[in-house]
């Protein structure tokens, strides 16, 4: 459906994107995830035809569109600023793309109404964008991008300006719409929750290069680099050298060892291991399993449906653990934490 091949973009001497390649299949929801300045937005703009690649090719439906101007690519795009035309009503905004794509007057009217219904805003057609809330504006922006049935939908951080509650609501709403009409979608965000909750596939970008491409599960469960492990999700880190005792282990605090899952690197390798907070269990007394460490509760933050505990271990590492809503511990308590060797990520 969409293929990006060796896309490279220089701004003067500054390399924004370096030899990036990935592909999107028909109907897939793919996310470009990365911190600001990683080149994700540049990539999206290049696909739209708004940024000229220094090198590389972009194919849409098998055709090389690298040299086509944006208006000839049949792409739908929602912008971070919504980019709704302030001097036009909602209806005129949606009709704009249809008009430019050569739809007849009657078709335009029908499709504008359909689009408004699709985004649950049938009664807002005559409003100006300035009269709508941020969430409503994003909906209109989406309706406008989808009205003329583009080959691919590009979303440039559309949820960034919204408050948290609305963000979560919009996420599931956006994904539902995308599945409903089956449009191939490329989503750009720095928000890992956006990426993990909506995508079929995630491309993690760093300094203009793809760090990892895979399903949200594989990105979260089996990151391939420390950057991905640290950027996506929270975790507790330990560093050390792999040592072969009974099975394989990582040195921890000279006296303790961390048991690693099968397939760990050979002895002598320096590694960093990561444990996700939901994989760490906390108890008052040791239960005598492997990978069990004593510590002191530093802080407990209630996240609503669960609590997150920060626990300081003997070697100074701060571990993060998720517990039930009302943990049986208080700040300053001595506790014991443990985790399954199979849940340890070794990099």
């Amino acid at each position, binding site marked *: 459906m969409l293929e990006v091949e060796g896309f490279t973009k220089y701004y003067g001497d500054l390399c924004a994107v370096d030899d990036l390649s990935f592909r999107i299949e028909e109907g897939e929801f793919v996310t470009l995830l990365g911190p600001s300045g990683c080149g994700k937005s540049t990539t999206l703009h290049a696909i739209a035809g*708004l940024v000229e690649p220094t090198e590389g090719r972009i194919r849409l439906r098998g055709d090389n569109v690298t040299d086509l*101007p*944006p208006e000839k*690519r049949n792409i739908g795009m929602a912008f971070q600023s919504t980019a*709704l035309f302030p001097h036009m009503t909602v209806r005129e905004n949606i009709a*704009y*793309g249809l008009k430019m794509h050569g739809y007849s007057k009657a078709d335009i009217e029908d499709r504008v109404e359909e689009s408004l219904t699709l985004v649950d805003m049938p009664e807002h057609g005559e409003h100006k964008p*300035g009269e709508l809330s941020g969430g409503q504006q994003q909906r209109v922006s989406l309706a406008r991008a989808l009205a003329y049935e583009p080959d691919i939908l590009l979303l440039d951080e559309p949820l960034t300006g919204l408050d948290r509650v609305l963000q979560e609501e919009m996420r599931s709403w956006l994904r539902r719409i995308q599945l409903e009409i089956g449009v191939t979608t490329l989503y750009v965000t720095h928000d890992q929750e956006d990426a993990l909750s909506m995508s079929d596939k995630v491309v993690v970008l760093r300094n203009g290069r793809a760090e990892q491409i895979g399903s949200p599960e594989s990105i979260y469960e089996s990151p391939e680099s420390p950057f991905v492990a640290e950027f996506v999700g929270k975790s507790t880190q330990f560093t050390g050298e792999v040592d072969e005792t009974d099975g394989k282990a990582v040195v921890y605090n000279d006296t303790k060892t961390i048991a690693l899952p099968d397939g760990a690197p050979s002895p002598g390798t320096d590694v960093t291991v990561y444990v996700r907070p939901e994989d760490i269990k906390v108890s008052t007394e040791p239960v005598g399993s492997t990978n069990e460490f004593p510590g002191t509760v530093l802080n407990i933050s209630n996240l609503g449906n669960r609590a997150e505990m920060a626990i300081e271990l003997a070697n100074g590492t701060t571990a993060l653990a998720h517990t039930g809503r009302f943990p049986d511990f208080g700040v300053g308590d001595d506790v014991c934490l443990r985790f399954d060797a199979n849940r340890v990520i070794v990099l």
Partner: protein
Amino acid sequence: MSVERLTLGRVTHIVGERLQGRVSNRHLALLGVSFVGFFLILPIIFLIPESLNLGSSTPFESYRRAMDGIYIDAFVRSFIFGLATTAVTLALAYLLAYYLTFAAKRVRIAMTLIIVPLWIAYIIRYFGILLFLSPAGPFASFTGIGPGLLFTSPAVIIGLANVYLPFAVLPLYNSLNTINKELIDASRVLGANKWWTIVKVIFPLSLPGLVAAGLIVFILAAGSFLGPAVLGGPRQSMIANVIANAFLENFNIQFASALAIIYTVLLVGFLIAFNTVFDLQEVLEDI
């Protein structure tokens, strides 16, 4: 014993502390308003009794005389030249401002080049154009259009447009520059080519700047004195020239005042009519 040095910052601080709580924004506005009131509004109001000359037996004589053909011609000419200059200036300024906003690499240098002529006295610039257009000047030798252009209406409009161009470029550049660039991107992605984007998005969103620039240039051009005086002939006399003539050469203060009052009323009336027809509020809303 240390004596605190009285620096500018210290003085500002002391003065600020004294004024704190006693001076509101309204007080500050009063300075500007009273300046304008004293030196603009009041003198104009004083012109009214002056023009009527109430003590005399024929108080409306000046107004009756102002209805003569030559004076009506001067009023009409002022408005026509004003409109023509506005049209020419806006067209040129729009192209310049568009270039500055979307294409220029060195906006500051370009801006400086546009503004620097404002530092040169109008009269010198008009004489520059006079020399350029004169029968022995470069324009004649380039084009072969001998002495035809000088002292004609086009010469006056060329001169006025030249002088007032910066006043139009600045508001236009400002309004073009504040257009969110993502709107232009959005228009392109939605299927509009460059030209449709200009027509449907950029132009409508630059209307506030266009209206502002148009009003500034029209008011300046319609009331201009030096342009027609230097570059025009007797048939290019605009109302300011007629008033100056009555005042400076014939010492007819009464008549000059009457012309000035009529012109002011016409201008204000024109602006009110413009506002009603185009409903500025409506045009500028939401932008």
